[in-house]
């Protein structure tokens, strides 16, 4: 029995010693794996932030982990604590509900937690929250529609993402903004699943169904690609505007080049993960408190400001 106690004490000491030996800040970053354009951008910007911040603060180590689902992510953050001994965690949860308890457990053990984009079901499980502004994402797009078509009126079709709370917030905000102009008519809104192929099919069917469409709110740059292909195939020239969103580099490039069909874009930048990591590191190193909620605004990208949002090396 004493043997066992001694062994436990020894292993505890060994586990604690690296933390005692240096006041190093170890920051764990847990994000979804790159399974589509936007998350690919998240992985890219997380690694960019790691390289930049580790150079800026030699005492900081950042560990970036990607997970394909909630279960893997829950295991991962446990390992980050027990194996890597992190002081702080920056997490973009795969899903809100299943990760709330695992994250709360980490916080209870003294880890500083920053949650990014997809919120947890219990805000008490986090110290800080950094997110894109989904309401603004829909509102900014809606306001642009009002500005363009408010006087003349327009028939608009909408492509939605995947049925989620995020998508509902965006679409509701868009509808509310567009409702300010009674001459703009939303013909229908169907799911394109944030996917080029599905958007192509849905748009084909919209074109069959509605003889005159003036504008499309594709609500995502990937879906806008499919929409434009469907327009080209049907040789329809009634559509004057396709508005995507998120800030895919090809879409930003089109805005820079003054594209007729896609003159503007609305950001929902995957670089928000980099902002969250930077804010967390700064607050840890300098000991300053971090704001409880930081909203990364959704901005209208026009030819004037497009170059600020253009990352040619990013996969997204």
């Amino acid at each position, binding site marked *: 029995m004493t043997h066992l106690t001694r062994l436990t004490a020894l292993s505890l000491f060994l586990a604690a010693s690296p933390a005692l030996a240096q006041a190093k800040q170890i920051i764990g970053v847990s994000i979804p794996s790159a399974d589509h354009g936007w998350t*690919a951008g998240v992985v890219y910007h997380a690694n960019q932030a790691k390289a930049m911040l580790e150079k800026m603060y030699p005492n900081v180590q950042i560990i970036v982990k990607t997970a394909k689902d909630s279960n893997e992510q829950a295991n991962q953050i446990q390992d980050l604590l027990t194996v890597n001994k992190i002081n702080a965690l920056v997490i973009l949860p795969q899903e809100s509900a299943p990760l709330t308890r695992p994250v709360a457990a980490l916080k209870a053990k003294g880890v500083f937690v920053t949650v990014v984009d997809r919120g947890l079901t219990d805000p008490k499980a986090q110290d800080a929250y950094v997110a894109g502004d989904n309401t603004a994402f829909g509102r900014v797009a809606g306001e642009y529609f009002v500005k363009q078509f408010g006087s003349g009126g327009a028939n608009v079709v909408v492509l939605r993402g995947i049925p989620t709370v995020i998508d509902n917030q965006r679409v509701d905000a868009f509808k509310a903004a567009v409702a300010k102009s009674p001459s703009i008519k939303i013909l229908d809104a169907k799911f394109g699943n944030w996917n*080029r192929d599905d958007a192509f099919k849905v748009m084909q069917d*919209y074109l069959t169904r509605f003889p005159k469409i003036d504008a499309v709110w594709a609500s995502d740059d990937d879906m806008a690609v499919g929409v434009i292909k469907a327009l080209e195939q049907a040789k329809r020239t009634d559509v004057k505007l396709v508005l995507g969103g998120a800030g895919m580099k090809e879409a930003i490039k089109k805005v820079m080049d003054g594209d007729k069909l896609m003159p503007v874009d609305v950001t929902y930048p995957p670089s928000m993960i980099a902002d969250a990591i930077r804010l967390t590191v700064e607050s840890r190193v300098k000991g300053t408190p971090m704001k409880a909620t930081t909203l990364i605004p959704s901005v209208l990208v026009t030819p004037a400001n497009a170059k600020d949002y253009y990352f040619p090396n990013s996969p997204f």
Partner: protein
Amino acid sequence: MSQPDPRAVPSGPAPAAAPARAVLTRVASLGPLLGLLALMVVATLLNHDFLTVANLSNVLTRAAFSGIIAVGMTFVIISGGIDLSVGSMAALIAGSMILIMNALSTTLGPGVLTIALGMLAALAIGALAGLFHGTVITRGRIEPFIVTLGTLGIYRAVLTYLAQGGAISLDQGVGDRYGPVYYGSVLGIPIPILVFTAVALLGGLILNRTRYGRYVQAIGSSEQVARYAAIDVTGIKILTYVLLGVCVGLATILYVPRLGSATPSTGLLWELEAIAAVIIGGTALKGGSGRIWGTVVGAILLVTIENVLNLTNIISVYLNAAVTGFVIIGVAFFQRGRR
């Protein structure tokens, strides 16, 4: 092809009932076709644009992808196998073929040669993937479900790696030359529909009129008996997977010019669409018997449901998948008498 099943013969002497029963079986075997016709009637009532040439050609063109794959899948399923990897395989082939064409176009230019080599590469990769499946399944004696479940993950992961999670896009020049393969038409019929028709006719011919087709069916009904009959079971089975791989390659050749890009979400769930088309079409999931025309109808039926839902506004968009599910079960119910 459909010999009377001895179990289906009623045990009591009922000579008058027999012809009636035969008629019923005949009607039941037309289940998928009746289902499709019923759906088309409903669609036309809901939206008169359904029967326009433009819409029907959209529907058939979309059905071409999963349909061509499903024709290959029919052989695999009849022989008693399954392939869960075809969606991932299509994505990987699309990505590889775009990368190959982009690389070639720098030296060969964005011409016909570059595109032809890209197409050849697509067929070759598909055939090799099929050869791999067939060999591991037969010689390695691993369940097809397991092997293709494994490659389902492998292929998509490799594509995601190649694309860094983003998109692999075709060079503009090559894309412009290649575009007509999807968007073009001959005598007013879009090219994907023509290819789909050719593949279906050829598939039917191979299945019903060649020794190879008979062997595939024999292996599916009883592998043991087929072995005793000195059929080269291993070789025939491997060939079914190679055929399917080539079909996937062919579908991808038609798919790539549509959007000119491959992303990690390309071809997602195509495997289930193809398998569903085969089963709706009346092929037994346990193997032994099946028919190509049923598969073709099944593929068109699945795409039509989606089209109808987009053309109307009656059903909540949240319930789309439920409608598809009900139709699949309904059509299967129609023809349950055949089993």
